[in-house]
Each structure stands twice: as C-alpha cells, then as structure tokens.
C-alpha cells in the first residue's frame, strides 16, 4: 500500500493518531465496510460535506448532536471549581456538584428495519445513550427524535416491592397504558413467560433478584413497541428462563420497526444486528458493519486487558479514522417539536 494517498485522506484529523499509525505502519484496506464510496478524495474539495437526502418514510430515529453532562450532588467531587467563595461554601456545607461528561456530540439516523447493536467498555456511555433514547433524560444539548416513543426492555427497573407479583403484573400493564381488558387478556401470557405461577401471591420483596427480573421482563415484553431497546441485562437468568425468553424476544423483535441492543456479548450482537455502534469514552468510535466493528472492538479490549495501552490506542485511532460522522439537517421548519403518546398501543 502506498503512503502517498494517506495524508490527504486524513487531513484535519488528529495528528497524534497519524504519528502512531505511521509509526506502526498500519495498513488501511480501502475495500468493503469502510467509509461510503461517494466520498470525495480530492484534496481540495474533500472538506466540503456531502449532502444526502434521507427519505423521511424510512426514518425511525434521529439522534441530532446529543451531548449529556450529568450534574450530580456530591460531597466530595469537584471541589476545585468555582470561585474562592463558592469553594469555601462547599467546604462548609459539604454539598457540592460533580460533573460527569457522559456523552458528547452523538449523531446518527436509524432506519426502519435496522437492528442496531451498541457496544463499548464499562462506563463508556451506553446506558446514558439508552436513557436519552427513551426520553427519560433530556440531553444537555442536541435532541433525540423518533416516530414514536421508544420502549426499553430492561431488568434493572424494579417494580413495587410491597405488593404481590399478581398485583405488580396488573400495575405494570396499566402503567404502560393498557386498558383493564387488555391487561386481563395479557395476564396468562405474562405468567407463562415469567414462569412464576407458584409465587404470584407473595409480595415482591420475597422474590430473589432473578425472579423479579423475570417478572419485569415478562411484563415489559407483553406489548409490541415500534422502537425497542433491549438491555444487556436480559442475558442473565438461568438456562431454562433464557430458552423461554428467547422465543418471545424474537417475536417482539420481529414486530418492532427498529431495535437497539446493548450487550457485552459480541456473539449476540453479530447474530442479531445489522449495524453496530461502538461508543468509547462518551464518543462514537465506529458505526457500521457488525463483523468489522466487533473485530476492532475485540482487538481493542484484548489489548486493554493485557495492559498494552499503546496498542489499544492504535486500534482506537485506527478505528476512529474510519468513522464517517454525519450532521443532521432538517429541511426548513420541519424540526420536530410535538410530543409522543405515552400509550404504547
């Protein structure tokens, strides 16, 4: 591979990355799964962005330059910010703010029919992204748009501990906006999926964590949402439960317009997804073909876990060079403002 074309391609990029890449003589293969073919490689015009028209009928979800910074109450964190007086005040009250930059400037479009896997090491911002996508939290800047309110299937959300499993099923269904008749109709299916028919009369506080996550899963999957977010925690549970849930999960996935799957299991991701987004340290690092992204991710994590920081950095930069960021532009006046319905169906 000749080196002469490379500087032009990566003009305006991180120079440190260039150095490292040059250093280790990394090869770029320009075929397949890389940036789109319509990119202008000419050095003089390549800075001009390519404008692509997107068919609004296909679009399911648009994340427009979303950033998230958490401000949480903390008695220890971040006591160095602010002026002298505010610092003194914090020392006296013991109540300060800690700022956590969880995500920065994320933009992507998801089309109808796509299954998007989201990967990243712990603390990279996956869960934050999921919270933004479900609208539980509004991004500090940027916005998230969709055709309908996405629904998260997770097991981390506990139900009401003091009341029985049976009451929790009814309460959960009603909280999703089902009518009492629909709730009654779904009841047997939920009990069957949860496999908890013996423990239904017991209050939820007597359940083990596995049992309550099964119940939560069964309730959450009783509806067929259009945009579905699946949390990695669904991979927990014993083999028997997993077999039972897989069938239902496939059904829900088949009915959904778009699916997000957060997982640490690359096998699941490769098997289920048509596209993978890799988030690292709050930034999008890759967005594309599952096979390719997963390979990079595997290499990155294996370097990381073996303490080869420099090699990991190389993989990181190499992957980032392939990233093809997109900017969202709504045709004049069509930036969505209206709210979605709280009811699922």
């Amino acid at each position: 591979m000749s080196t002469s074309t490379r500087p032009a391609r990566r003009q305006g990029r991180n120079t440190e990355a260039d150095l490292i890449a040059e250093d280790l003589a990394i090869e770029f293969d320009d075929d397949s799964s890389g940036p789109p073919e319509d990119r202008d490689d000419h050095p003089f015009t390549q800075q001009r962005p390519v404008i692509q028209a997107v068919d609004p009928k296909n679009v399911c979800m648009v994340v427009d330059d979303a950033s998230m910074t958490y401000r949480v109450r903390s008695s220890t964190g971040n006591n160095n910010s602010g002026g002298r007086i505010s610092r003194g005040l914090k020392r006296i009250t013991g109540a300060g703010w800690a700022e956590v930059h969880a995500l920065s400037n994320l933009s992507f479009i998801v089309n109808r029919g796509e299954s998007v896997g989201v990967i990243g090491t712990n603390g990279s911002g996956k869960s934050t992204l999921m919270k933004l996508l479900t609208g539980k939290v509004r991004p500090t800047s940027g916005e998230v748009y969709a055709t309908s309110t996405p629904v998260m299937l997770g097991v981390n959300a506990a139900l009401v501990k003091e009341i029985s499993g049976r009451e929790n099923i009814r309460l959960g269904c009603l909280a999703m906006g089902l009518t009492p008749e629909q709730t009654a109709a779904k009841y047997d299916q939920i009990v069957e999926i949860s496999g908890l028919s013996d423990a239904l009369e017991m209050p939820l506080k007597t359940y083990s964590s596995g049992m309550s996550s099964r119940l939560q899963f069964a309730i959450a999957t009783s509806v067929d949402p259009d945009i579905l977010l699946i949390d990695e925690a669904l991979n927990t549970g014993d083999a028997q439960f997993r077999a039972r849930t897989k069938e239902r999960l496939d059904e829900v996935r088949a009915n959904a317009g778009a699916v997000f799957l957060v997982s640490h299991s690359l096998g699941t991701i490769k098997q289920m997804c048509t596209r993978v987004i890799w988030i690292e340290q709050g930034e999008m690092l890759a967005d594309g073909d599952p096979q390719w992204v997963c390979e990079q991710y595997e290499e990155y994590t294996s370097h990381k876990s073996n303490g080869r920081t420099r090699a990991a950095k190389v993989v990181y930069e190499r992957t980032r060079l392939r990233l093809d960021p997109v900017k969202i532009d709504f045709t004049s006046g069509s930036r969505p403002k209206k709210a979605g319905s709280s009811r699922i169906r």
Partner: protein
Amino acid sequence: MAAPALERAGGPTESGDARRVAQLDGSNLIRVGARPGLFRYIREIWSFRHFLYYDSHSRVSSANSYDSLGRIWMILNPVLFGTAYFFVFGLLLNTGRGIDNFIGYLIIGVFTFRFFTAAVSGGANAIAGNQKVVQAFNFPRACLVISTTVRELFSSIPMFFVMALLVLSIGDMQLGGAESIPITLTWHWLLFFPCIALALMVMLGWSLALARAVNAHNDVKHLISFSTRILFYTSAVFFSADRYADLGVEWLDTVMSLNPLFCVLDILRHAWLYDGFADPGRWIVLGSWAAGSMVIGFLIFWHGEESYGKER
C-alpha cells in the same frame, strides 16, 4: 429553578468534522420525551385513570405491611397522638379553657390534621420516592401524585369512622369548668363530605407543586416538616381561635381565617359538635384555596414534566 425551554434557542451546536450532511423532513417525527400540551396532558392522565386507581388501591392494602399490627396503626396513631395532646394541652397547659366539648374539638383537630399533612408530605415525595417506577414506564407523571392523594383518602376512611365514633361517644364529656353541649347525629354531619372534597383539592394542588420542588431540590423536604409544625400551631388544632382576639392581636385573626386547614376544622366542628353552620366566609376561603391550588399546582407540575426522570 427554570425548567428547560420547550425548544432550545439556536439549535444544536455545529459538530466538528462531519463530512456528511443528512437532510430530512422531520414533520413525521416526534421529539422523544417532550412534554405534551396542557389539554393533551389532561387527556393522557384520563386515559391512565385505571393505572391511577389501581396504584392507589394496591398500595393502601400494603401500606403498613411491615408492622405486626398492620393496618390498625392507621387508627392507633391518631388515637395515641390525641391522648397525648389531651394530657399536654388539655390538662397541663389548659388551652381548652372556654371551649365547649373540648374533647370532640381536639379529636376533630388532631385526626383531620394528620390526614392533611400525611397526604401533602406523601404527595410531595411521590416523584422522588418512586424513581424506579418513573424510570421504567412512560405514563404522565402527575398520575403518581394524584394516586398518592387518592390513596391517602382511601386509607383514611377507617380513621374517619373512628373519628366520628369517638366524637359521638366521648366528644361531649364534661370537662373542668367548660360547658358541654350534647352531640347528636344530624344531617349537618353530611357537611363533612363537601368539606373534605375541597380539602382534598387543596392537598392535591400543594402536593403537585411540592412534588416538583422536592424532585428538583431535596432540601425542600426539610422545609416541609418545618412548615407542618407551623401549620399545626396556627390552625387551632388544640386551642380556640378566639385566643388571638382576646390577646388583642387583630392581624393574627385575619391570617387565621385565611388558613385553609383552619377553615376545614372550623366547618367540621360547627357541623359535628355544635350542630350548625360555620361562617360562610370559611367556605369561600376554602373554595378559593381549592380552586387556586389545583390550577396553580397542576400548571407548576406540568411545566416540569420533562425533569422527573433525571438522576438526582
């Protein structure tokens, strides 16, 4: 604390090195998590009425499930407090001087006061204390506050029965030098229902406003328990409102008559203890509080709808 504006000015910032611009027509899309308009919000609450009812109902039955005496505490609690106040204020401090049927007076005061403050402090905590439910589902958040108030009403029904029984049986007991007027069950007792309905509206309005405040700033909780104390000592729970007039502090009398809880107590006492009507001014003050709190509280809560899922 300002709520986030519905549409941010200026739009998103320019992102650094995007080489692709995707142009699309967003008129079919919604903004995820956006707050619906006021009337649509009310309609959504209506469509979640079954959830609201079931939530309050199921939690009444489990409210005291950690205690071995269970639901008996709902009655035992005000009875114990009433007895304690009777000894402290009635016998030791003798605040009941000049009050006819002081025992009945004190029972109505203590029981109703407990109902009022339990509902308001419960409602104020409805969002902050139910983060798990808020995180898991997408219903309009006002449902949680409303259901807390409804739950408080449900769980107070046995307490109100005990209150009526106590007033009927020992309310007119002869005490010291005070006169006793025999208490009988008349149709005036029915005034209890419109009076409590108006009180519920006041409580709901306050709960809605406080729920948002507590969720945004946990510090408000401390202020609530302080304000509850103040309300207790200024609502004539265990003394007569005439005390202020006797002391010659005119403005305190005015403040008192504008206090919605005092209006509730005064209406109930006139109906139950003295078989008559309270001053019509009390109904006007209470009615205005009910309407005003409902409207203002609801608007405050609705305006913060997008902030309730936030980590604290």
